[in-house]
């Protein structure tokens, strides 16, 4: 098996696996990181979104080889209860979810947006999240939470 190396949440990571294995299977299987969720396996729902470089991508249909030597950030690398990312704080403040299965993917799409555009409009946020599906109908709360996080980051 070829060895593929990438930076996962800032840590150099080596994986021996078939290079065509979906990144999501590696994250959830070998690496035990269950924050990125399986939703459809076809890149259609965004529940598995992670950030590669500066962009959110669907990990379920991204082959391992394509992230070689790149920076991969998952929800586990975004923040934690001790050091929450402003987006995580804002999602709690706005109670911006119902079941929450889609939320880790949505947080990653939103984090990628805020890297590119620290001052997004409501429409910018909706456009950035348009490939993420939410079935519970928490969309508007999520948009409010992203705008709130953006304001917090700008105020720093």
């Amino acid at each position, binding site marked *: 098996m070829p060895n593929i190396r990438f930076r996962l949440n800032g840590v150099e990571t080596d994986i021996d696996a078939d290079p065509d294995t979906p990144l999501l299977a590696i994250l959830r299987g070998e690496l035990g990181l269950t924050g990125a969720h399986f939703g459809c396996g076809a890149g259609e729902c965004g529940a598995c979104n992670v950030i590669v470089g500066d962009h959110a991508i669907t990990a379920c249909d991204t082959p391992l080889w394509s992230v070689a030597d790149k920076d991969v950030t998952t929800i586990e690398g975004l923040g934690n209860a001790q050091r929450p990312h402003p987006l995580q704080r804002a999602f709690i403040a706005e109670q911006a979810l119902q*079941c929450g299965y889609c939320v880790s993917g949505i947080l990653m799409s939103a984090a990628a947006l805020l890297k590119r555009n620290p001052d997004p409009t409501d429409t910018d946020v909706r456009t950035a999240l348009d490939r993420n599906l939410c079935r519970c109908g928490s969309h508007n709360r999520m948009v409010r939470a992203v705008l709130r996080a953006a304001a917090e980051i700008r105020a720093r």
Partner: protein
Amino acid sequence: MTDKTPSPSTPKLPPSLAANPMLSSWIRFSPEGHVAVSPGKVEIGQGIVTALAQIAADELDVELARVQMVPASTAGSPNEGVTSGSLSVQQSGRALRHACAEIRQIFLATAAERLGVETDVLDISDGTISGPGNVSISYWELAREVSLDRHASPGAVPKASTQRTLAGNSVQRLDIPDKVFAHPRFIHDTPLPGMLHGRVLRSELSGATLVELKEDGARTIAGLVAIVRDGDFTGVVSETEAGAELALSALRKSAKWSSRATLPDEDGLAEWLKAQPAELTVIASKRASSPPEKTRTIRRQYTRPYIAHGSIAPSCAMAQWNGDRVRVWTHSQGVYLLRADLALVLKIPVENITVEHMEGAGCYGHNAADDVALDAVLLAKAAGSRPVRVQWSRADEMSHAPFGAAMTIEIEANLDAQDEIVDWRHSIWSNGHTARPGRADLPALLAATELAKPFPRAIATNPSQASGGGADRNSVPLYDFPSWQIESHRLTTMPIRTSALRTLGAQGNVFAIESFLDELATERGENLVEFRLRHLSDRRAQDVIRAVAKRAGWKPARRDGTGYGLGFARYKNTGAYCAVIAEVESAQDVRVKRLTIAVDVGEAINPDGVINQIEGGAIQATSWVLKERVRFDRQRITSNSWTEYPILRFSEVPEVQVEVMARPDLAPVGAGEAAHGPVTAAIANAVFDALGVRLRNLPITRERLIAAMELSS
């Protein structure tokens, strides 16, 4: 007002507590300073565990942080049936409130004895019971001494609404931090030690029989533990999830299927429903004292398609055998009901089966959660004593799980010379709206129909009107018409599998009733709000309609391509009141711009939780109305991906404003299903306001809009 909390002068246990009277099954105190609260209802993303924690903390006078919510398990939780129908606050909430009120009194009495004072001089603050002269003792200190292994007694009096500090206030949901920080909480994310992975092979054809299967390919896949076959039920067990997927795909390549199933013609669905063998039930009948004088009759037909639950997570379960006993982890809505069906299939006593709840994604009704639990149990038989985790594919989730039933609804009204309604007839043709597990002598689980000795597929039925009704839910008008006849035709064939989807038949019926009334009132040239108000004698109904009209500035001046529509219902005619005004814009597509909503749920335990549920229901209903329709040809469900079954996206979601009526002294009811019917009707009525055409078939798509415009021009 008839539905006030029963007065203390007629003591009676709340039904859920009467069915599960042992106090210790609901509440336990730990010496470490926690209260374990164990409801029979489960979290499905609706925030119920937080509302129940609020109720318990309030009644016991402890901080919310001390409350630990125990997931439901057949190993000891109260049996509260299924978490559905917006009933959890009514059922579990009332039981907990009553149980906690009694437990509080038991502790007060014990503390009074220990402290040598009367109970009425004692106060409880965060679990510490204190009296005059700085004497105090706590729940935690008394926990070992006070046994709650006793039956609840009627007569315990919960606090008055004014004495509650938590219920009625918005609190942050207990489960949200874990979900935002991705701490494993979902069943999907919680591997068991030594766990194997299973997958089940199912044909894309409906009702297919496996004619040929070659196992050689799958046998070469690394990590394969077993190939399981029992009739048409076929699955693989592997050391790894990737291995299970590969083995499944090898099996799939070699599988040959045949199917005798014939699905209806999708384009003739309304007429197909009316032509099927059916069981007719008269739901309600009311005759005017004097025979009405009719001048003319208006008849309209409305339809809604099959609708998929479309959980974002494919269904998942884990099972582990130990000799003749099996333990099951599931996101089912009813652990005891699933256990009953598993016992039927496995032919073992229920005592040999333990079913434990773990959170899944929102399910919105009876999806494949229970089916996958049986899959896991069957595959785990080939795994010795190791646990097996099974997860469905997206395609199976969208084609083999039950759907919300398609409906044809006909309303006919007789009008007198003044165009007033003198007689009303409402007829429904639909498959039954529930085929949940644990309620019949046939199992409702998919794999049971696939075994070598198969069980017949259970045909979906309808709950009685007393239980809220099924296809007929919300078909009896809340309006004061002098005479009516409501009938439901339940199909006795079921080529497309149906079961409970959020609101059951209420979405279709409210859509039909409110569309019909809108049409009548418009023809009369009467204000749509006034028309409804003068037909409603229920004050709470009038209040939500007035509130939403005021909030939306009814009726805003119409601009080109913009329209406003109203919809109203009281869910199940016994639950939450909800009135909605929709604002739509229509260029090529219909776009819902804003939904303004007023809702009366009685006492709102967690007001922000209520708003969250109403917003979510409103957005989901908008998705149903504008986009959703299960697609099929004569052999298979074809809408088995998000591309083929699109749902509303962020850029398409309307602004939603919710006003919760202040009713702290009225019995609390659920909010999860209140908005769907009124939102559906409000959108359809707003489309008429904008474009002057009535869309009576859901979903309201561009194609249907164009067709309707052409017909009317």
